[in-house]
């Protein structure tokens, strides 16, 4: 399979916040080499472990987000390790890092290099020296403020979404810089701030705050719409589903079809069936009207499972979605039909099913190409490409450089 980034060499020095960026570039065909200290990346020591065995080759975090990369070990704090790194960087197109690298020395050796830094707040500015992690950058973005229940503090997603937002953006920034290089012949620095990346998830509402005066509020499973508060997350027989009372040309057919579906089960009142959907405007509903609608929809959902409701949604174009976990994803007919999941053989450990290509293209160009590298798996091959032979490698190993 030919990737759109075939032939692009990437050195990936990132810690966890940057893992996804290199994975995406690798799955588009770039040769991404993960550079780890000889003791291994700290992520390899993070539980849970596949098979319950504490083993650097079995950390699920590591295995999940480093697919399609090659891996080497190199002690960057050792003069010889540093030298070898500069040799590798001299022939690389891209270096990805998370705030530990000074670009000056790299740039001096390779004017075509694209150096992408993923840091909590960016490389310059008043918070450039601040520490930041998913919780704190999300807190400072306005996104946390608006997430959660009204009677409790703001709350985050239990996995680090800022790393995903920033990681994808970093990969895009790298490609923008590669495109610019086609014209200028020179590389440049790409400075990605996870904090700033968490503004886009507010979908424009931070910019709107000065126009509308709306500072944002937590509404839990509900959403404020016009004059009322309307439910978005509804309990069903075996879990939860997402469904909105919002109208508009794109949504009203779904509401009409939902009422018909409920009616087939004898669960739509005469009043509900008599709704004039042509004039329906969710912004104008009173709370009493919303509560009456919610009582009917809510009672119906409680009689159905997530799978039943989603099957009906797909057949009847209802705008309803189950609150999926991986169990439902693995059972999805849609994802199976598209061959989404990748079943990867991990030598010595068995097969592990992981999410597959993040997009499909014609001609095909995106794929999970290989499992995450074992510690130092490609050290000999990669250093061999810059002329380090077996004898030299043995010496480096003895000195603790690799």
């Amino acid at each position, binding site marked *: 399979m030919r990737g759109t980034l075939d032939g692009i060499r990437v050195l990936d020095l990132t810690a966890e916040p940057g893992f996804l960026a290199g994975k995406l570039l690798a799955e588009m065909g770039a040769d991404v080499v993960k550079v780890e200290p000889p003791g291994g990346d700290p992520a390899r020591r993070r539980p849970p472990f596949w098979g319950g065995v504490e083993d650097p080759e079995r950390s699920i975090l590591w295995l999940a987000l480093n697919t399609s990369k090659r891996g080497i070990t190199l002690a960057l704090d050792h003069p010889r390790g540093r030298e070898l790194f500069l040799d590798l960087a001299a022939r690389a197109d891209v270096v990805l890092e998370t705030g530990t690298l000074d670009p000056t020395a790299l740039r001096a050796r390779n004017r075509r290099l694209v150096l992408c830094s993923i840091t909590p707040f960016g490389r310059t500015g008043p918070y450039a020296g601040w520490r930041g992690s998913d919780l704190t950058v999300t807190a400072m973005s306005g996104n946390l403020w608006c997430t959660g229940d009204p009677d409790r503090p703001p709350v985050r997603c239990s996995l680090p979404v800022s790393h995903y937002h920033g990681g994808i953006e970093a990969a895009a920034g790298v490609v923008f810089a590669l495109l610019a290089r086609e014209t*200028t012949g020179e590389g440049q620095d790409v400075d990605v701030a996870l904090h700033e990346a968490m503004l886009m998830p507010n979908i424009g509402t931070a910019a709107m705050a000065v126009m509308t005066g709306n500072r944002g509020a937590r509404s839990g499973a509900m959403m404020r719409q016009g004059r009322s508060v309307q439910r978005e997350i509804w309990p069903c027989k075996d879990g939860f589903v997402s469904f909105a009372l919002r109208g508009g040309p794109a949504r009203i057919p779904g509401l009409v079809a939902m009422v018909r579906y409920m009616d087939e089960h004898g669960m739509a009142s005469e009043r509900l069936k008599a709704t004039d959907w042509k004039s329906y405007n969710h912004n104008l509903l009173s709370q009493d009207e919303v509560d009456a609608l919610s009582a009917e929809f809510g009672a119906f959902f409680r009689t159905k499972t997530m799978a039943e409701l989603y099957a009906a949604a797909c057949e009847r174009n209802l705008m309803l*979605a189950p609150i999926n976990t991986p169990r439902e994803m693995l059972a999805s007919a849609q994802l199976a*039909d598209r061959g989404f999941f990748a079943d990867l053989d991990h030598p010595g450990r068995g097969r592990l099913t992981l999410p597959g290509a993040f997009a499909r293209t014609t001609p095909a160009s995106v794929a999970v190409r290989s499992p995450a590298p074992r510690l130092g798996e490609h050290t000999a091959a990669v250093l061999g490409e810059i002329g380090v032979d077996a004898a030299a490698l043995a010496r480096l190993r003895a000195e603790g450089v690799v």
Partner: protein
Amino acid sequence: MSGLFAGTTILEFGGGAAGPLATRYFADLGAAVIRVESRQRPDFLRTLKMTPGTKGGLDGSEHFAVLNAGKLSLALNLSHPEGVAVARRLALRVDAVAENFAPGAMAKWGLDYASLVTQRADLVMISTCLNGQSGPHRFYPGFGGQGSALAGFNHLTGWPDREPVGPYGTITDSLAPRFAALLLAAALFHRRRTGEGQHIDLAQVEAGIVCLSEFVATYTATGEILGRVGNRSRHAAPHGVFRCADEGGRERWVAIAVHDDADWQRLVRALGSPAWAADPALATAAGRLARVADVEAGLEAWTRPRRAADAARLLQEAGVDAGPVADLRDTHDDPQLRHRRHFREVEHAVLGRHPAETNALRFSAMEPEIRAAAPCLGADTDRVLHRLLGMPAAEIARLRDAGVLA
């Protein structure tokens, strides 16, 4: 380099957030992004909050304005055969086509990749929708709220003892545009190097699940379904948001994240080494996790009388990861976002001056700029038809009279 994409034209069909946010990256770097719109079936963001009293009607939506700054608008009635013919001529002429209609819509008009590529072999086109262009559920209609639920984000967000809530802002609508920008840029890069075009089918749910690879792999490797843990960490403590002094009658919090035992020692010193924190049992992550509620209560006793910004600054000065919880309005006063010029003022024809947002990328040799406010519907129709298709004024007038440019 003033604008990487100066001279590049992208034709955009569709609406909402997931499609239009993707092309913003290109507009900010100089591309002409032409939105194909119609009064017959306007972008739902133009109508989302609309009531009969909305000033400017379809052009008065703040939400549309902030998401579509720097673009052009072409009014084209695709239910008219001549409208479809104009769209087709444009699609074959531009550098890339982006669409986020429901699958099948573009094919109905003969504007899908398979139809267009017969006349333009090196076409670059991206189609994005929730479930993708193929498969039994491809026609499933949904917005980002559904995408977030299907991809697993809702399940992971909220408190363990409460129903799931989902991260604020329909998260697949902000993840998908970034994937789309990456894929589209890479396709343009590939065409530049090889002359080959590409069609991209980005299923927003699949791309979201790829982000949550750790969630999926935990299940496939161990059978465990990770749940909601509030703001806590499974690996470290304390890790949460802590109540501070109210400001202007509003509740305030500070986020504090201790990642390891060295962080804990820094935190204890910053707190003035209170007696409760001196307990040696709390010196290890395991010890703190075992008594996490006590640790959180002790920490909150310290934060409660303080202003959130003061607490965060004090902790950062001690090397502790902390930040004030900002509301949406507060982000405009954030010194770091100001330094990066995240918000840029534009002048909108109906709404007047307002801030628009750029992305999180800064480059050493090019600067993203928001060149104009969002367009009123059809504001650029004549100019686009004239410049891109060389259409004479009389022909434009004829099409307008025939209801094609509506």
